[in-house]
């Protein structure tokens, strides 16, 4: 089967959180048709196997390669990137955990940059733990963009029914309106286009949401649609992309869900996140666009409150792994 394909890497995430548990739960079945290697601390993964009661054993790799079909569903292949001496306590912020999670991500980035792996799926890390370890990045995306050498990255949020790319992300609504200029619109449209191609969608139908109620109602409720968004759409159409809009924000997601569009470019965080979360928070996945390699992640955090109980739901990480595999297949990696 897919044993000759390049492996996907899953980073273990913050070892005080649910990351290792959901990694183990994900790998009890054959989720994707290619090898999967876990990057992290073997002792942390061993503990997660105990907690979840999974019928899996660890196989520690010295290097990538030597995957074998027989191991899928019975062994977890681990590439040790971290040695914590002993697994940390659950549910508390610790510098050691922050550093371990970060080191695993860095190891994965190195493998992705040299082309040894097809892509990275990241289990959740904790930004305060990283900060406690003196690591200045606020999250995964910034680490990946910086170490991966990307100029402009964007998040694509996807679930089974809907995909969306945000023009602006983590800023106040006031700032979002300021930042959603022509360049930001066009960049988001291009990344949406590339993101769909990466998922194997051949001629992506891109819808751009308006900013104002009723997409401005012809200028009555705001000028941004006329002055900024429409010109950016025209520029994208001139680049041979199938882009329409600006569509009213309150109906465009419904239309996308009905299959009329492959992706929606949302103007601000909540415009895209309300529909994505409403339609299935547990199955949401983040895809980072603009990196020189594939990266996906689940749409949730470290869940310190339930870490170590073995109850965490792995569905989002499984979906993230599936998306990564789909993108790797589309690129024939």
């Amino acid at each position, binding site marked *: 089967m897919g044993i000759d394909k390049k492996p996907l890497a899953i980073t273990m995430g913050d070892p005080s959180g649910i990351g290792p548990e959901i990694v183990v739960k994900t790998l009890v079945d054959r989720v994707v048709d290619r090898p999967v290697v876990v990057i992290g601390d073997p002792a942390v993964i061993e503990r997660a196997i105990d907690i979840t009661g999974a019928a899996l054993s660890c196989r520690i790799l010295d290097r990538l390669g030597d995957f074998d079909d027989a191991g899928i569903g019975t062994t977890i292949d681990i590439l040790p990137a971290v040695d914590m001496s002993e697994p940390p306590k659950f549910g508390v912020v610790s510098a050691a955990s922050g550093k371990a999670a970060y080191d695993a991500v860095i190891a994965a980035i190195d493998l992705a940059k040299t082309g040894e792996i097809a892509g990275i799926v990241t289990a959740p890390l904790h930004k305060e733990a990283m900060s406690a370890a003196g690591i200045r990045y606020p999250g995964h995306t910034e680490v990946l963009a910086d170490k991966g050498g990307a100029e402009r990255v964007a998040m694509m949020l996807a679930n089974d029914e809907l995909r969306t790319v945000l023009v602006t*992300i*983590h*800023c*106040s*609504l*006031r*700032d979002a*309106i300021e930042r959603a200029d022509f360049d930001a619109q066009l960049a988001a449209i291009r990344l949406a286009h590339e993101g769909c191609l990466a998922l194997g969608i051949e001629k992506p139908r891109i819808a751009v949401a308006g*900013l*104002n*109620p*009723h997409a*401005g*109602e012809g200028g*009555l*409720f*705001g*000028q*941004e649609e006329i002055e900024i968004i429409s010109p950016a759409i025209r520029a994208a159409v001139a680049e041979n992309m199938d882009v329409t809009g600006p569509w*009213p*924000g*309150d*109906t465009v*997601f*419904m239309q996308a*869900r009905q299959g009329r569009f492959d992706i929606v470019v949302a103007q*601000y*965080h*909540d*415009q895209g*996140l*309300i*529909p*994505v*979360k*409403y*339609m299935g*928070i547990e199955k949401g996945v983040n895809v980072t666009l603009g990196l020189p390699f594939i990266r996906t992640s689940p749409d949730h955090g470290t869940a310190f409150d339930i870490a170590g109980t073995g109850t965490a739901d792995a569905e989002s990480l499984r979906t993230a792994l599936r998306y990564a595999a789909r993108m790797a297949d589309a690129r024939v990696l």
Partner: protein
Amino acid sequence: MTPRITLLLGDRNGIGPELIARLLADPKTADSATVEVLGDPAVLDQGIAAAGVSPDPNGFSVTPFTPIEIIETTPGMPTEAAGREMLAMLAEGTRRVLDGKSDGVVFGPLNKEAMHKGGLTHEDEMRYLADVLDFHGTVGELNVLGGLWTTRVTSHIPLKHVADHITVDSVYDATLFAHRTLASAGFDRPRIAVAALNPHAGDGGNFGMEEIEVIAPAVEKAKAQQLAVEGPYPSDTVFVRARNGDFDAVVTMYHDQGQIAMKLMGFAEGVTVLGGLPVPVTTCGHGTGYDIVGQGAAKPGSITNAFAICTAMARARNAEAAA
């Protein structure tokens, strides 16, 4: 006392008459209220024919109301005459409640263009009705879907003006208004969530200060009035929680915030409540469906829900009057 509900056919050129016909054909309608149809009997007959239903004539009464001498039905067309008829019908229906002849009004979809042609000078039918009824208090539209009510602090304004309109007073007023309207629909102590303005509810001030400086103080002010209010909550999860039954109402900060979620929940079933008026008035969340008029394809989910909510409001109003 069984509430008396007046049904208005809405725009005669839209799907309103068919929807009212379907509502009348539903045996549950006559069980929950004493129903009268106010309007042109010929238009009701057209609606019954289009819907292909045969409502029990004992289940409702017809109060003929033909304010315009000669009026043609022109399906799918917004006409001046139909607009005048809609305005007259709304005024007459609601006045009947104030006169003690009815307890609430449900109307079929209206067409704004036709009403403007017919002489509407107000922003919408809600302001028109407030004027007709000589009512000067706060009015506001609420959307109801699947048991969840939403109202908003700002509505049809550019998004860049929204933050300037989010004040302690405006958020508090919208919250109090939501509380009172739900109470008027029979909720004992409605559980209200107030949505945040910024992503992650401002992330402790990293993504905007409005939650800390404005919305939280408004929520505290409402709590001090013994209202069951919580928030501000991130808007991308507040609707998920509401769907799970945590809240009866969500107060939203801007138009799309509530509308995105409501439309995903099921656009076709939504109800609009004209809140604040001295008369219970509800209608469909959808429009006149000009493209499907007369085909019998229009679904009655929304009008049925509008009727149920109006009936609950009328019952609560009667109970209050009796107390």
